[in-house]
């Protein structure tokens, strides 16, 4: 996968902190987001680790010594059941879709390489994720969850 390179190398949104662009409400929201990263409440430990492995391939952050946390915010969204305003009728409800999808990723990983996604080398992880993106999957989980719908962001 091609690494993402920002075209805005000199832009830092936090430079707005003390400018008229932000008010006290905005500073408080951003302060909380930067300092109060949510703990695991929705995912199981295994689901969390699988999602960490997925995020490391889909949004790698090699340029950051201190990577931006991603999984905690997905966990928070699902903990509060903040949904997307709609659901395709061939998809399970959001929380169930996430649990099934993460289970399905490890199923597909074991089907192809004999072990969970997080234990695979990066190239094999990419093979699994591309197979799910393309819908080239097998097993009972993916019979209940359309792989390409799960992979495609809904909003």
């Amino acid at each position, binding site marked *: 996968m091609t690494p993402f390179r920002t075209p805005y190398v000199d832009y830092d949104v936090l430079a707005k902190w003390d400018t008229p*662009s*932000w*008010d006290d*409400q*905005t500073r*408080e*929201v*951003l302060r909380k*987001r930067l300092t109060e990263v949510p703990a695991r409440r929705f995912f199981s430990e295994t689901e969390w680790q699988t999602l960490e492995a997925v995020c490391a391939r889909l949004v790698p952050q090699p340029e950051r010594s201190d990577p931006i946390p991603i999984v905690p915010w997905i966990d928070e969204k699902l903990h509060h059941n*903040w*949904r*997307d*305003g*709609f*659901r*395709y*009728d*061939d998809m399970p*409800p*959001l929380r169930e879709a996430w649990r099934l999808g993460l289970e399905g990723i490890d199923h597909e990983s074991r089907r192809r390489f004999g072990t969970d996604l997080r234990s695979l080398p990066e190239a094999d992880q990419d093979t699994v994720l591309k197979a799910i993106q393309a819908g080239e999957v097998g097993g009972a989980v993916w019979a209940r969850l359309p792989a390409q719908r799960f992979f495609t962001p*809904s*909003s």
Partner: protein
Amino acid sequence: VSSAGLPRAVEGQAPDVFRNGGWVPMRSYRDDDEVDFAIVGTGAGGGTLTCKLASAGFRVVAFDAGPFWRPLEDFASDEKEQQKLYWQDERITGGADPIQFGANNSGKGVGGSTVHFTMLTPRYRPEWFKSRSLLGYGVDWPLAGKTSSRTTRRLRTCCRCPVLSRIPGAAGARGIPGGRTN
């Protein structure tokens, strides 16, 4: 409701969306009062209709699923934070070519999607009123020509005057942002 989950617009007043901590008068009704209209949803359609009916002297109650926001106090300049304004509850979409509703094209709270419409109001082009005939998709509207422009003007006028407190006898949901007339 407020962020604490308590109703905000009660006992004859509603939040003044233009002033921190301010209030404007709003007629309120008891649960067993008889009213002329009960309107579900206070967005661009229901909010505007509430305004027009109340201004005409009807007794109107309007319902909304979400909070009565105080924008100056409740909103941050941040895209993730403003997701609380969106309709996040489940709506099912299906069929051969299912529509992706998206969350941010509707709202939950007094004012509905007008709370976060970001002042983007595309004007209808004349051909869009006959989109089936002229463009080959959608349906033709039962409005056209002079009717549409007069309707558009009226809608534009009433959608930009949400401050009902200055209209004697006005009732119903207030605080539908979008600017004010004075």
